[in-house]
């Protein structure tokens, strides 16, 4: 893979990971069944979900870029749907509450009304249908972005153009290159999942939340951070 294309791949992958945090519903207060969303902070949930996608993408890294990205996206989606389904089970049988959301009055997809079922004093609990769809979309994006970074770094480390220039890179065997690429992808995940958490202030309900209007701020910050990291990796591999 051409090093310049790989660098652009790293940047785009990082920005997509930043966007996915807005879509996955998460809130720390959900652990007390006091607000809609999975009961963890947005940054760590997106990281966990993206890393599950990275694990799934690792199986097919040697088979080419498109299948790695799609495989990673579906691995993340599988993790999120299992987590959401079982979190709803706990809320239904452990706490005794029905899934309702606080940001809309009638569910856009099923049309069910939310307010009669909301515990007095809280902001919703667990995940109704529209929020779950938003979570799946977010997980698909997160897994795809992370796998794109992973495949790009791997492509950069094994590309014939770079191997011809730098003897140090030529000495890295493909198996070690996969691990290095995986570590850099994990690092990019953690970097790009925390910046949107600044924007969201700890709690989001996914695509139906009014905080989606702050998406441009995330786009700019994540683009800046990813551009610097991407350029630096490119320089480290190709130039030095």
């Amino acid at each position, binding site marked *: 893979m051409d090093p310049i294309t790989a660098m652009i791949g790293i940047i785009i992958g990082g920005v997509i990971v930043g966007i996915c945090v807005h879509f996955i519903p998460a809130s*720390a207060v959900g652990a007390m069944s006091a607000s809609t969303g999975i009961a963890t*902070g*947005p*940054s*760590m949930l997106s*990281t966990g979900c993206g890393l599950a996608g990275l694990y799934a993408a690792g199986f097919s890294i040697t088979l080419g870029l498109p299948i790695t990205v799609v495989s990673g996206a579906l691995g993340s989606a599988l993790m999120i749907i299992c987590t959401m389904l079982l979190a709803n089970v706990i809320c239904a049988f452990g706490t005794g509450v029905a899934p309702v959301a606080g940001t809309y009055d009638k569910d856009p997809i099923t049309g069910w009304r939310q307010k009669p079922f909301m515990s007095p004093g809280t902001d919703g609990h667990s995940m109704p249908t529209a929020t779950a769809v938003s979570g799946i979309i977010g997980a698909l994006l997160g897994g795809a972005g992370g796998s794109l970074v992973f495949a790009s770094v791997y492509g950069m*480390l094994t590309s014939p153009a770079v191997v011809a220039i*730098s*003897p*140090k*890179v030529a000495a*890295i*065997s493909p198996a*070690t290159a996969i*691990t*290095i690429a995986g*570590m*850099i992808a*994990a*690092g*990019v*995940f*953690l*970097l790009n999942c*925390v*910046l949107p*958490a*600044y*924007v*969201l*202030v*700890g709690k989001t309900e996914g695509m139906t939340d009014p905080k989606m209007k702050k998406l441009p*701020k995330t786009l*700019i*910050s994540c683009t*800046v*951070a990813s551009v*610097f*990291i991407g350029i*630096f*990796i490119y320089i*480290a*591999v190709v130039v*030095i």
Partner: protein
Amino acid sequence: MTMQAEPPAVEKKEIPNIKLYIVAMITGIIGYYILLANPNLAFISIILVWPAIVAGAGGVEHLCRYGLGTGTSSIGYWGTAVGATVVFATIFVSSQVFNLYSPFIVIIVGTVIGYIVGFCAEKIINMKIPQQAQQSFIITGSAAIFILIVLEVLSAGGVNTTALYYTFPVIYIGTALVILHPYNGNLGAGENQTRTLMLALCEAALITTVFGIIGVLLPNASFIPALGVLIISLIGFVIFVRMWWKKVKEDTYDVVWTGYPAGVEH
């Protein structure tokens, strides 16, 4: 500018984090060159790199004290992610493994990226936390220099680089946890900087003990550097825990073996 941070005075005076950072950078660079000169002096370098963790923990404390809102953990991961990615990219894919310019490259790049992203957070996202850009680059720079020295200690025994790649994940997550844990462990109304920074020293010694164990086990010819690190870290750990425990006893309301909580009928 003095080379030493002022000792904590009797009245509640706080040490500005930027002084801690400059001390940490200078001692880190000195430690790196000592290690290049003679790998068996690794135990001196490790003592010189503990201030980096203290500086990073101070940065986390400053940012989170003003109400970061997303949880104290996130800023630690983000800072370590920048520092670690910079170090890994420099060391393992650039043409020379540990050349003479590594610490400067790593510190400068880490500081620049940390500053720019912190600046974005201040101006674009507008979080209204004072000195956010400065504290951000303190965290990223400290993580970068710490990881660089640890990687060099582990490889100074002449281990072939393939085996060293396996230690990446634990170095990364271990550094992240010890930078953010001191403030998280002291969360509460009575938190003060002295106790937080002493806890940071205890935890820095703890994590370098774990890295020392890993270094002793790495398959290489000479494990003397890692053994030195392990012994010095254990000694440092015991000393720092005594200092920290004395401060905790001063600060706690009451220390008893057991009792009925006040205000609840039994």
